[in-house]
């Protein structure tokens, strides 16, 4: 699948049997709806703010258009509710959520104890730790 930001082909990362698509160039993450459901199901947590954002009412995205890597439809933006709400891109046909590099960090920081967000934190936290741990280049 193509990264909606830089249009280069993403690689697939499988962690604890859940897959995310990851752009090596811009470090963005595509969280597929099916994988999100699988994650929530496996962790036994009820649906929370992230699933809510996927189904929620979107606003038109300002700036350059970004297309859903699954269906090619223009994505909109939604809020992931929490102590510090995070704005993420979303396919209006609910194929999944796109998290830019910074958004992933903010989403995980504002986990706020919701079991669903904690599960996402456990999964994706590793992606973030490695970024923090790595020496800043350039």
């Amino acid at each position, binding site marked *: 699948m193509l990264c909606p930001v830089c249009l280069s082909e993403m690689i*697939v*990362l499988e962690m604890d*049997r859940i*897959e995310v698509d990851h752009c090596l160039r811009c470090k963005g993450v595509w969280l597929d709806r099916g994988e999100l459901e699988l994650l929530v199901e*496996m962790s036994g947590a009820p649906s929370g703010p992230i699933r809510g954002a996927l189904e929620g009412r979107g606003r038109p995205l300002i700036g350059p258009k970004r297309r859903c890597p699954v269906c090619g439809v223009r994505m909109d933006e939604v809020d992931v509710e929490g102590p510090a709400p995070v704005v993420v891109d979303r396919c209006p046909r609910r194929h999944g959520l796109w998290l830019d590099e910074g958004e992933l960090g903010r989403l995980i920081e504002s986990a706020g104890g919701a079991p669903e967000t904690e599960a996402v934190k456990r999964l994706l936290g590793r992606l973030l730790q490695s970024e923090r741990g790595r020496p800043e280049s350039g």
Partner: protein
Amino acid sequence: MWEQIRSNRRKSAILLVLMAVLLLALGSSLGAAATGAPEGAIAGAALAAAVWLILTLVAYAGGDNIMLATAGARRIEKRDLPKLFNIVEEMTIASGLPVMPEVYLIESNVPNAFAVGSPKRSAVAVTTGLLARLNRDELQGVIAHEIGHIRNQDTRFIVLAGVMVAAIVLIADLFWRSMAYGRFRGGRGRGGGQAQAILMLVALVLVILSPILARLLYFACSRKREYLADASAARFTRYPEGLASALEKIDKAVLSERPDVNRVIAPMYIVNPLAARGGISGLFSTHPPTAERIRILRAMGKSASFAQYEEAYRTVSGKSGLIGASALADSGETPVREAAAETEPVAAARKREAMDVLYRKSGYRIAQCTCGTRMKVPPTHPDPAIPCPTCGRSVSVG
């Protein structure tokens, strides 16, 4: 069962003739209305027949492949998914099908399955979502249902009748388009007068009614075939609960998922993804209500015979005469077997197994980092090593 299939075949032939009459009537009335002359009727009918003939030829030459390609199905081998192949082999033997169907995999979270072809050359297609959600008994039930369709020759009928519906819809559609360009409006200045106005009215009525009628005929016939395929599945597997439980899971998932399905293929799936959402119901549905199919399977009790299915069908739906008398008499004792005892891998593991097959088929290289992260690298990334995004180590993806 055989007389049932024969009677089905007779009904199918009648249905196809009715549809052909409808198609020709539509073509000729449109031709007459457009030209205002009787020769127009013949030309119109000829045009309608030509459209149908072309579509049928295309369907016969490559219909199955078109269906599979439209659904995005990929052919897989035994070494890709041996467990799935074992089930298909088992059910081929249980059903007495002369040739094992080819097996196709579709990438979709929506659990579903369909079959195409004739007993001598056929294929079953399942989605990755189906493999993820179902255990072995349930998957066996679904495969048996699909093989039941192939064995009962339903797959071929659905293609033939579907083409006829498509031709009628296409011609009606052409009419509306030419209306928009004003071709039918003034009769091009020829003083046809009242006669043409009446022809126009007839054509209009046919244009509105024939697509509806064609679909009605098609759907009425395919619903009974669903019950028969369920009855076949119960008998082939000797475990009606497998299919019942699978249908329950599929129906639930289909309702919550957004259908990414083409309207032509939708009626072929084991649970119609478009109808399940409540858009189509009653006369217009290709499938009986899934809840009723489940209730019938669960009412079968200790026997998996055709007679027992007929009995359960009568109890649940209040109707009878689903299965022919000879099949009811000779089906004999078919005691229900025990549930398969096995430790089932979790849904996520089953989904990874199915998806990895598709990744490999698409030329992805799969590598495991020592930190536990697995990387699936598309062929467009030629680099022999890639830094692991979760730990930074360089991982070779040879």
